[in-house]
């Protein structure tokens, strides 16, 4: 396997708080890796460490096979780009001036590639050219942030919550841009997001992180196989429904007072009969595919704060 990034028992603590606890992660070359986790799970800490903004307390990571802690890691980082949390742009400069800054930082001999980059991220309109970044919308700032991250022609792009705060149109444009970068420019992407539905449309691989630990790494194909189909039932009361499910020893999840999901193939006659015994009425039953969100919730043991 050709990995762009691997972490080995990565550990990070801030005084008493453990942000990352022996986290192992593997990002395949050419993939779009979706990092999934609730607030405070350690996603941003992980990204900050990979980007060299923070040092791990213990453990390490490798970028393109080069281990952290060696002097070569600085060179390896030269092949990556990132947008961590908010886009890193000079607010008093225009998009072109911001890109010129980054080209200087990278030591690029000319600014010839700048118009192409501006066009790639969709900031080529004349009305934008003279605008300072402080007058940009959030979506425009995100796009400029990505353009800056792409200035060094990276093979690996790290995007931390890139669709946060974007309007629906902006989300679609961002998705298309990420897919274009991955498919046309062969850029491996690590993307963290809370918006699981959006992530499911992008990622080829997923990493589920909770309390600083990697709970599971899975490819989109495997995930699809593992995403169990379920039966969404509407009943007169989920308390009685639970008693029946416990008796039948079936996996289930309560949605609200009247709705529940059953993760098993079951005869409806048997189900109705068992519900009747506990005084529960079955109002309706529909087959339903499990989404990334419900898979995630199930993986984390019912915690719905994704």
């Amino acid at each position, binding site marked *: 396997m050709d990995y762009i990034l691997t972490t080995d028992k990565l550990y990070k603590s*801030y005084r008493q708080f453990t942000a990352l606890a022996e986290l192992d992660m593997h990002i395949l070359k050419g993939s779009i890796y979706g990092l999934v986790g609730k607030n405070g799970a350690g996603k941003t800490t992980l990204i*900050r460490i990979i*980007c*060299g*903004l*923070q*040092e791990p307390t213990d453990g390490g990571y490798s970028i393109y096979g080069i281990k952290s802690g060696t002097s070569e*890691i*600085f*060179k*390896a*980082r*030269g092949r*990556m*780009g*990132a947008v*961590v*949390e*908010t*886009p*890193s*742009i*000079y*607010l*008093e*400069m225009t998009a072109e*001036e911001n890109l*010129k*800054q*980054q080209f*200087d*930082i*990278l*030591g690029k001999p000319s600014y010839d590639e700048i118009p192409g980059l501006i066009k790639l991220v969709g900031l080529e309109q004349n009305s934008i050219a003279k605008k300072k970044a402080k007058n940009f919308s959030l979506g425009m700032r995100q796009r400029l942030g990505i353009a*800056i*991250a792409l200035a*060094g022609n990276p093979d690996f792009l790290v995007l931390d919550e890139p669709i946060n705060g974007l309007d629906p149109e902006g989300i679609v444009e961002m998705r298309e841009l990420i897919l274009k970068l991955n498919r046309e420019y062969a850029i491996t992407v690590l993307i963290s997001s809370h918006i699981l539905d959006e992530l499911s449309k992008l990622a080829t691989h997923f990493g589920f992180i909770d309390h600083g630990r990697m709970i599971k790494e899975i490819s989109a194909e495997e995930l699809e196989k593992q995403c169990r189909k379920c039966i969404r039932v509407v009943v007169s009361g989920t308390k009685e429904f639970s008693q029946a499910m416990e008796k039948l020893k079936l996996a289930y999840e309560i949605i609200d007072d009247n709705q529940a999901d059953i993760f098993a193939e079951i005869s409806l006659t048997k189900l109705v009969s068992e519900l009747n015994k506990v005084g529960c009425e079955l109002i309706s039953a529909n087959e339903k595919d499990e989404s990334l969100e419900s898979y995630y919730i199930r993986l984390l043991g019912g915690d719905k704060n994704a």
Partner: protein
Amino acid sequence: MLRLLKANLSRLFKSGVFKLAEFVAIGYPIFVILLNYFQGKSGNESHDYISDAIPTMLSMILPFILSVVVGLYVGTEYHDGTIRNKLIVGHSRAKIYFANLLTMFVANTIVFLSNVIVGTVFVTALIKAPSLGFLTYAKAIGVITLCGFAFCSIYMAISMFIQSKATGVVVVMVLSVAFFMTSMTMYYRLQEPEYNEAFTYTNDAGETIESPRQKNPHYLEGKKREIYQKVFDIIPYTQIITVGNGVKLPEKSYEYPLYSCGWIVVSTAVGIIIFKKRNLK
């Protein structure tokens, strides 16, 4: 590091605060010279003395100007998050720090030298050419420039430690005021005469009373005076007060650059150690 320096300088020359600092550096001596020129023309008083003081006059406010320039320049990197762009693409923290420090040295040199050049040209044209020799002048400029570097290093260490732009600027500005107050207080303590001179006065009854020459209780003596003098010499603001105030180069003019270099080395070492361990957001 040259790449970082190039990027930093290009940002510096576009920065509004640097342009403002340049405006003050050039405008201040022109204003003072014109004021003295017209006062000299309209009155009998000679304003020729200004010709030796003008070129280094800015040095008194140089530390304040630098605190704003350094605080805002470094603070912007944190505020806008752009320091991340440098780290992510593989620049080491030490290189980033040194590139920022060198950029501020350049800013200090440009601001101060433009003030000296404009001041010298204007004062020569309108009032009188400075009477001090070239070497004395060059030494004074050298000592003050080094003092400016020392201030840049101190402000840089603090600004790289504080990630909030507003807090960083306020802290370095307060520090520059604290340096100024400390220096001035010590300056006046050291200037206290050893004796209060004898004097006579007439009381209400019409008697003439003679007060003998008395020992000044505020006069610093012995070890205390030595310590005061040493601390006074070490504070960079003191050097600016002593040298910049009419270009009076002290006997110990060779010590001053050494003290400035000491400040630069110590504050840069501390700054880099802190910056290397800093968790950036």
